[in-house]
């Protein structure tokens, strides 16, 4: 709790936290939506924002406000699945490579380096084309998770490398702690904040890729996400036809989401760096 209060003193954490909280509330509103997001023509097409349709309606005959609540919910779910599953991979790879070292380290780091060099985006596009029909919230989350761990595994590995050299590792090993217990009890507490900040970055990455793939038409387009809303707006040429409200809503929501995630992550990683923490919080 003290950590949280310290963090809230940073304007970036403060705003990031509240914007994200508002986004969750907004996503929660989707449970009360009067319209079914999979149906078209529920409301008149192409209406400007008005008291009846707060954010207007689109050319598919859907209410943009309620669609947006589903979009935020789905985009966040995709990001959370991708983030959590890839954390499992990243932590496992990072810990094994960092703690065991030697041959397994070299092999694992070779794999992660290769993932970093290859143009992943296009590989994901090819794979997405393969399972185009069944690209739903869960499968997209898992697809992104398979590719999104490489850099974070490296970060976690380097932290484990430095922890391994500390005295308490020797103390623990000499007093008979097994590898699993050592890693879980001794290393995890140190690595947790780092894992958390990589999780936030990874979620931002996943939301970005979700939007990209959706704009390319590689998602199941009947699922409302921030990306599919933009896909429909592009394919109906909303900007050229003057339907700015259709583009403005998903863009504003995406911008807020990206800013909130970035600010949270910057704030947390500065907090992790004690020299900067002293500057901000004061020597306490």
């Amino acid at each position, binding site marked *: 709790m003290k950590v949280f209060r310290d963090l809230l003193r940073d304007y970036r954490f403060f705003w990031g936290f509240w914007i994200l909280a508002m986004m969750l509330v907004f996503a929660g509103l989707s449970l009360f939506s009067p319209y079914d997001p999979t149906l078209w023509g529920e409301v008149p097409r192409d209406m400007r924002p008005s008291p009846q349709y707060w954010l207007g309606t689109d050319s598919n005959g859907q209410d943009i406000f309620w669609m947006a609540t589903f979009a935020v919910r789905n985009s966040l779910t995709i990001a959370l699945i991708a983030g959590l599953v890839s954390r499992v991979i990243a932590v496992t790879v990072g810990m094994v490579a960092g703690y065991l070292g030697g041959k397994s380290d070299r092999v694992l780091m070779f794999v992660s380096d290769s993932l970093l060099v290859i143009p992943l985006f296009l590989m994901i596009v090819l794979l997405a084309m393969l399972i185009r029909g069944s690209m739903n919230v869960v499968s997209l989350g898992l697809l992104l998770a398979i590719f999104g761990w490489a850099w974070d595994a490296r970060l976690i590995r380097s932290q484990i490398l430095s922890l391994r050299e500390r005295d308490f590792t020797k103390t623990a090993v000499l007093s008979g702690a097994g590898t699993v217990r050592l890693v879980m009890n001794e290393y995890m507490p140190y690595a947790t904040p780092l894992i958390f900040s990589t999780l936030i970055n990874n979620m931002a990455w996943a939301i970005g890729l979700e939007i*990209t793939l959706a704009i*390319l038409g590689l998602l199941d387009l009947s699922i409302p996400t921030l990306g599919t809303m933009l896909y429909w707006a592009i394919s109906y040429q909303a900007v050229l036809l003057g339907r700015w409200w259709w583009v403005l809503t998903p863009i504003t929501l995406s911008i807020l989401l990206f800013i909130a995630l970035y600010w949270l992550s910057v704030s947390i990683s500065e907090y992790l760096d004690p020299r900067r923490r002293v500057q901000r919080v004061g020597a306490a």
Partner: protein
Amino acid sequence: MFLRRYLIPRIIQYILVIFFGITAVFIIPRLLPNDPVLRTIGELRARGATLEPGAMDKIIADLTQMYGLEGSWFDQYIAFWQRLARGDLGVSFFQFPTPVATLIATALPWTVGLLLTTTILSWVFGNILGAFAGYYSGSRWSQVLDGVAMVIRPMPYYIFAFALLLLFAYAVRWFPVSGGARLGMQPSWNWAFIQSVLWHSFLPALSIVILGMAVWFQTMKLVVQSVVGESYVQYARLSGVTERKIVTRYVFRNALLPQITGLALSLGLIFSGALITEIVFSYPGLGTLLYRAIINGDYNLIMGITIFSIFAITTTVLIVDLIYPLFDPRIRYS
């Protein structure tokens, strides 16, 4: 030592990444349920072409050969590499029978031109601003710039592109919001065409430059701030070196080193860095080509673009990695 411990493993990795990457590109589309030959014929029919039964078999045979779908997977795989070695990426299914390599070659100058220019421009401007903001980090304008960078930095470039598009399509109509040049103009080296290209690429370029600047600004500011605190700067100041000399010779020069490395690394992105921005502005580069390929289900073209990018990006990164030590004598691969 350098050779054995760094160079050789790095080159082996380069070759393996290309090998596995391209093998994956070969396998993935073959897992698809639909047959591209039958699809193409279906499309020909849908466009109203009537085919005689005899001509049909001939067309199927021709297409199968053309798409490299003859024989077992293994035969196809060998033939695939043989064709690649000749720089042959097959023909586009949709813009039949234009070779994929020709389509890429037409789109490439647009993409590379846009990204090379914007990468360099944002590097120059971002670093200049960042250097001064870091040196005068206590001042009001430096803090304002920092705040602006904090807001712009997290946005993906295409989201920012959309925001600019909305702004310039409705609020201020100064620049064209789509296309690469005026419709009907033929690419050539005359002034009218160049002018039209610059005019049309202004918005996509602006969106990339502003975002890029935010990134360079932030890192440069941090580096300069830390260099200013170094003891050799304080020593220089105490020994009466002029402020001007301290700034140019001691601070900026040292802060620039990591930025040059960063610039080299970001050059690896000039082939694939702004695909969606191109789509947003209908800019005729690789991104728009990819978009059309995906919409039309043109697997050969998508594969071609992917193979090209694997080669281009891994090669750029390899070159950058190998010339690192020339830039920064402090990095020695030991």
